[in-house]
C-alpha cells in the first residue's frame, strides 16, 4: 500500500455539489424543460418481429393524416452505414446499421418515424403505416449463434473501420484471443483445478429520465441539438456523418441529464430529431417512453463465461483460462470493447503469469447490448470471484486470506495490461496505488468476517440459513493512449474563474469535482470556479462520460490548466510589482512577494489585467491524454439469509470498502459507491428481461422489471480507503463503475456459504434459488 495520502484544501472535502440546490428546487434544467414554439413531436414504429425483411412499406395513409408533417423510413432517410455506439474515432464497433434498415433484426428495431404537430397525431399516424414483413427464422441463444445457418447481418456491407476480426456471415461480431506465459505448464503445476461456467442476464440501465433529444435550426441556419447525451462531441461527429452535413453546421448542447450509466453514450434519438429538424426547419422533440427505453435502448451484454484456474496447496495461482461468449443482440454496439474489458478488468487482479483469454461476441435477434457501467468487468467478475472462492475452499484457505495473498500489490504489473486493450493491444503499466489489503481488512472488520461461523450458527434455523460472502473487484480509470480531455479557463475581474470543460456531468457531480481539482491548484475555493460543461460550440473537446475517466483524465487536464494559469499569474504580478517571478507564491487568493511584503490579490490582478496595467486576458487551455489506466479497487462483503423452503435471499448487511486513490469529494464518492452497488444488487436479485418465444420482452415497465426501492434496502456501509495515485489529479483514480460488479458474485458466494449450493446463473430470484437447492439435494 502506498504511504502517502493527500489531504487537500478543497479536494478531499465534501463541498456542496454545484447543481444540487437548483435541482432540489426543481429548476428547469433538463432537455425537456425548455419550451419551444411550434415544437414537432416524434413517435417511432418498431418491428414486432425478431427477424424479418420489410417487403412492403406504405406510409401514404399516415402522411395524409391531419397534423402529420413527415414520415421517415429506410426509403427516404440517410443510408449511411454507421454505429450508434458513441465512441471515439475510429470507432471500435462495427458499422452495421443505418438509421432505418430494410431488414429488421429484433423486436424493437426501428421501422418508421412519424413527425407531427402533436403526440396524438403522431401516435394515430403510426397505426396507419402498412408494413408487410417476410418473417425469417430468428436466433436467440448466443451459445448457438456462431456459424448458425441463420445469418443476421447478411447484407454484406457491414464492417469495422479498424483492422480487427469480423465475420458477420457467421454472426461473429468480434473475436479476441490473448495468451501470456505458459498455460499448460501452469495447469501442470497446479495441485487443484477449478472450472466453472457462469451466465449473466440481460439488464437495463433505467435512468429515471428516458432518452430525449430536441433539435432546432438557429438564426445562422445551423442545427442545434439539445440532448441527454454522455458524449456531446461524439454525438456531433456522428450526426455529421449520418446527416452528411458539415460538422461545423452542428452544435450539440448537453443540459442536466437524468442519469446515463452507459445507455446515453448511444446515439439513438439525436439523428431522428436532427433529420426532421433539418427537413422541416422547425424544433423537433423525440423522447423515449419507459417501454421504449427497455425494448429499444441498450442493455448489458449477456455472456456465457467459462473460467478455469489452477492453484497450488500453498495458495499460489498457477494458471487462469477464460473463455467468453458475449451476446451483442442485433447490432454490434460495444461488441468488441466490452468483450476485451471482460478480460482486462478482471484478470490482472490476482497474481498469475500464465493466462489465456479467448472471447467471441455474437449477433442474435435480441435487444442490443451497449455500454453499461461495469462494461464487461461486471460479467467476468461473476466467474472470477466464484472460482477464487472455490479455489480457496479447495485448499482449505479462508477466502479473505486467499485474496490478501494473491491480489496485485503496489509496484506490480500484470502481463494482461499489455495483452488486452480496447479490442486491440493494451498499454503496459505498473499499478502504483493499491489499497486492497486495507479494503479487505477493514471490510472484514465491519461485517465481523472472522466471527462469521459463530454468527451463522447462532442465526441459522432449520429453514433459514445465514451466509457470508466476499469478493474483490477492480476497474480502470480512462482508456490509456486513446481518449483525450481538455479544459479552458479564464480569469474574471473579481478574481474568480470560468472553467469550461467538454466533460459531461450526467449526475455524477463531475462539474463540482473538476472545479475542486482546478481550485486546489490555485488555492481558490470551489465556489470561485464557475463551471460550464458540454457544449460543442463553447467548451473544448472531451471524449465524454464513459470508461471511468472524468475525474482521472479531465481532472488531470484541470490540474494542467491550474499550472498554466499559476505561471501567468506569477508573470503578471512580477511585471506589475517589479519583483522576481521565482520569489512569488500564492496564498489566500493573492500572489505574494514575501521579501518585500508586496502582494496582489486575485481581484486586483483580475481588474488590472482587464482595465489598466499590461492589459491581457489571463486564461489557458490544457488537455490530457492518459498514459495509463490505474485501477480503483473494492472489497465487497455481504451477510445474507437464505430461506431454503422458499428460495428467498435476504441481504442483511452489505459492506463496500473502496480504494479510489484520493477521494476528491467524499460524499460524492459514497454516492457513486452506493448507487453502483444498489444497482448491482437489483441486477443480481431481481432485474431480468423475460422474453417470449418470439424474442419479445414481456416486462418492459418498472412494475414488472423490478429495481429496488427504499424498503428493499439492506444495511449498507461504505468505507473509503484513501491511497495516492501518482499519475492522477491530486492522487485520484476513478470510482464510478467498480462497485457495480460486486453484488452478483458476492451473493453467489454468500448463498454457497449459507447452503452449500453454488448458483452460477443470476438473478437470484426465489424460484431460481429454490430450484438450485432442490437440484442440489437430488
Amino acid at each position, binding site marked *: 500500500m502506498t504511504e502517502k495520502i493527500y489531504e487537500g484544501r478543497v479536494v478531499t472535502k465534501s463541498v456542496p455539489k454545484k447543481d444540487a440546490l437548483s435541482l432540489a428546487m426543481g429548476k428547469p434544467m433538463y432537455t425537456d424543460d425548455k419550451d419551444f414554439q411550434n415544437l414537432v413531436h416524434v413517435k417511432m414504429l418498431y418491428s414486432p418481429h425478431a427477424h424479418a425483411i420489410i417487403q412492403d412499406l406504405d406510409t401514404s395513409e399516415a402522411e395524409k393524416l391531419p397534423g402529420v408533417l413527415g414520415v421517415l423510413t429506410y426509403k427516404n432517410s440517410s443510408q449511411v452505414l454507421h454505429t450508434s455506439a458513441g465512441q471515439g474515432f475510429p470507432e471500435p464497433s462495427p458499422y452495421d446499421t443505418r438509421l432505418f434498415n430494410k431488414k429488421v433484426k429484433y423486436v424493437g428495431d426501428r421501422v418508421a418515424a412519424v413527425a407531427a404537430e402533436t403526440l396524438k397525431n403522431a401516435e394515430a399516424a403510426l397505426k396507419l403505416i402498412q408494413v408487410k414483413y417476410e418473417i425469417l427464422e430468428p436466433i436467440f441463444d448466443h451459445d448457438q449463434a456462431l456459424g448458425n445457418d441463420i445469418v443476421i447481418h447478411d447484407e454484406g456491407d457491414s464492417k469495422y473501420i479498424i483492422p480487427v476480426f469480423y465475420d458477420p456471415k457467421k454472426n461473429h461480431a468480434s473475436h479476441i484471443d490473448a495468451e501470456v506465459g505458459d498455460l499448460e505448464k501452469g495447469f501442470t503445476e497446479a495441485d487443484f483445478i477449478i472450472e466453472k461456467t457462469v451466465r449473466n442476464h440481460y439488464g437495463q440501465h433505467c435512468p429515471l429520465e428516458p432518452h430525449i433529444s430536441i433539435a432546432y435550426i438557429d438564426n445562422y441556419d445551423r442545427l442545434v441539438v439539445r440532448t441527454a447525451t454522455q458524449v456531446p462531441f461524439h454525438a456531433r461527429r456522428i450526426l455529421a456523418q449520418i446527416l452528411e452535413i458539415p460538422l461545423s453546421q452542428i452544435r450539440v448542447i448537453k443540459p442536466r441529464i437524468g442519469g446515463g450509466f452507459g445507455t446515453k453514450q448511444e446515439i439513438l434519438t439525436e439523428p431522428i430529431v436532427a433529420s426532421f429538424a433539418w427537413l422541416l426547419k422547425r424544433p423537433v422533440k423525440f423522447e423515449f417512453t419507459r417501454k421504449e427505453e427497455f425494448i429499444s435502448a441498450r442493455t448489458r451484454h449477456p455472456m456465457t463465461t467459462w473460467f478455469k484456474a489452477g492453484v497450488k496447496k500453498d495458495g499460489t495461482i498457477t494458471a487462469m483460462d477464460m473463455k467468453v461468449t458475449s451476446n451483442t443482440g442485433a447490432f454490434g454496439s460495444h461488441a468488441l470493447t466490452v468483450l476485451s474489458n471482460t478480460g482486462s478488468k478482471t484478470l490482472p487482479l490476482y497474481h498469475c503469469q500464465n493466462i489465456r483469454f479467448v472471447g467471441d461476441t455474437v449477433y442474435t435477434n435480441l435487444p442490443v447490448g451497449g455500454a453499461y457501467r461495469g462494461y464487461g468487468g461486471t460479467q467476468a467478475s461473476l466467474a472470477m470471484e466464484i472460482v477464487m472462492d472455490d479455489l480457496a475452499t479447495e485448499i482449505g484457505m479462508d477466502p479473505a486470506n486467499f485474496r490478501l495473498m494473491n491480489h496485485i500489490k503496489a509496484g506490480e504489473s500484470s502481463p494482461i495490461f499489455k495483452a488486452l486493450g480496447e479490442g486491440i493491444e493494451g498499454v503496459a503499466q505498473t499499478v502504483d496505488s493499491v489499497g486492497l489489503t486495507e479494503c479487505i481488512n477493514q471490510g472484514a472488520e465491519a461485517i465481523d468476517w472472522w466471527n462469521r461461523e459463530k454468527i451463522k450458527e447462532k442465526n441459522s434455523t432449520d429453514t433459514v440459513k445465514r451466509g457470508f460472502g466476499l469478493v474483490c473487484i477492480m476497474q480502470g480509470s480512462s482508456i490509456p493512449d486513446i481518449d483525450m480531455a481538455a479544459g479552458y479557463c479564464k480569469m474574471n475581474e473579481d478574481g474568480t474563474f470560468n472553467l469550461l470543460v467538454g466533460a459531461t456531468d450526467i449526475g455524477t457531480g463531475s462539474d463540482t469535482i473538476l472545479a475542486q481539482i482546478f481550485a486546489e491548484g490555485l488555492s481558490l475555493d470551489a465556489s470561485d470556479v464557475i463551471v460550464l460543461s458540454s457544449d460543442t460550440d463553447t467548451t473544448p473537446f472531451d471524449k465524454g462520460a464513459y470508461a471511468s475517466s472524468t475525474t482521472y483524465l479531465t481532472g488531470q487536464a484541470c490540474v494542467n490548466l491550474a499550472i498554466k494559469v499559476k505561471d501567468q499569474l506569477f508573470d503578471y504580478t512580477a511585471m506589475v510589482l517589479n519583483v522576481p517571478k521565482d520569489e512569488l507564491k500564492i496564498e489566500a487568493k493573492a500572489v505574494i512577494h514575501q521579501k518585500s511584503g508586496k502582494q496582489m490579490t486575485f481581484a486586483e490582478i483580475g481588474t488590472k489585467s482587464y482595465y489598466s496595467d499590461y492589459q491581457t486576458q489571463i486564461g489557458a487551455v490544457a488537455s490530457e491524454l492518459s498514459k495509463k489506466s490505474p485501477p480503483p479497487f473494492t472489497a465487497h462483503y455481504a451477510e445474507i439469509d437464505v430461506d431454503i423452503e422458499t428460495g428467498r435471499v435476504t441481504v442483511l448487511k452489505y459492506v463496500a470498502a473502496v480504494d479510489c486513490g484520493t477521494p476528491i469529494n467524499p460524499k460524492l464518492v459514497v454516492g457513486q459507491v452506493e448507487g453502483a452497488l444498489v444497482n448491482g444488487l437489483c441486477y443480481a436479485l431481481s432485474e431480468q428481461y423475460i422474453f417470449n418465444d418470439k424474442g419479445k420482452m414481456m416486462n418492459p415497465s*418498472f412494475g414488472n422489471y423490478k429495481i429496488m*426501492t427504499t424498503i428493499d434496502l439492506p444495511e449498507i456501509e461504505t468505507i473509503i480507503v484513501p491511497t495516492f495515485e501518482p499519475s492522477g489529479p491530486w492522487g485520484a483514480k476513478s470510482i464510478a463503475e467498480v462497485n457495480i460488479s460486486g453484488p452478483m458474485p458476492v451473493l453467489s458466494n454468500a448463498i454457497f456459504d449459507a447452503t452449500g449450493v453454488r448458483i452460477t446463473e443470476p438473478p437470484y430470484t426465489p424460484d431460481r434459488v429454490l430450484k438450485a437447492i432442490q437440484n442440489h439435494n437430488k
Partner: protein
Amino acid sequence: MSQILHVIINGTSKEIPIEPDELLLDVLRREGYKGVKRGCKEGTCGTCTILLNDKAVKSCILLAAQAKNCSIITIEGIGTRDNPHPIQQAFVDEGVVQCGFCIPGMILSAKNLLDNNPNPTKDEVKMALDGNLCRCTGYSGQIKAVLAAAPVMRGEK
C-alpha cells in the same frame, strides 16, 4: 381547449384551459412547473409526485380534470434559493442529489411524511419514499437527509 380547470397551484389560484383527457402531469409541465418530471408515465417511478390537497400523489396517473378545485403543491412552491425548505437543504447538505431527476418527487413525498409525522422512524421514512425510484444514489443518503430534516422542521435545530 374544451374546458377550464380551476385549481390552486403553490398558493396561486389558476384558471387553466385543458382537454378532458389530459394528464395532470402534462398540464402542470405545460403551465411551466418543470420540476414535475416524467419518468415512466405509468405511475411507477414517482418523479411526477406532487401534493394534491396535502397528499403525495403521482400526477401521471391523474387526469387534470380530477384536480378541479384542488390545492396543488409542486417542488417550485416549497422553497427559494435564499430560504430553501429544510428537506431541500438536507438533500444538498447530505450530498444526495446526483442526477436530480427523482429529487423533486422524493422531496415532496418526504414533505408529505414530515408534515403528518414530524418524528418518523427510519422505517417510516423508507415507507414514505418507497414510491420514488432513484437509480443514482442507493437511497441511504436520502433516507438520512429526511431524518436530518425532521428536527429542523420541528424547530429544534
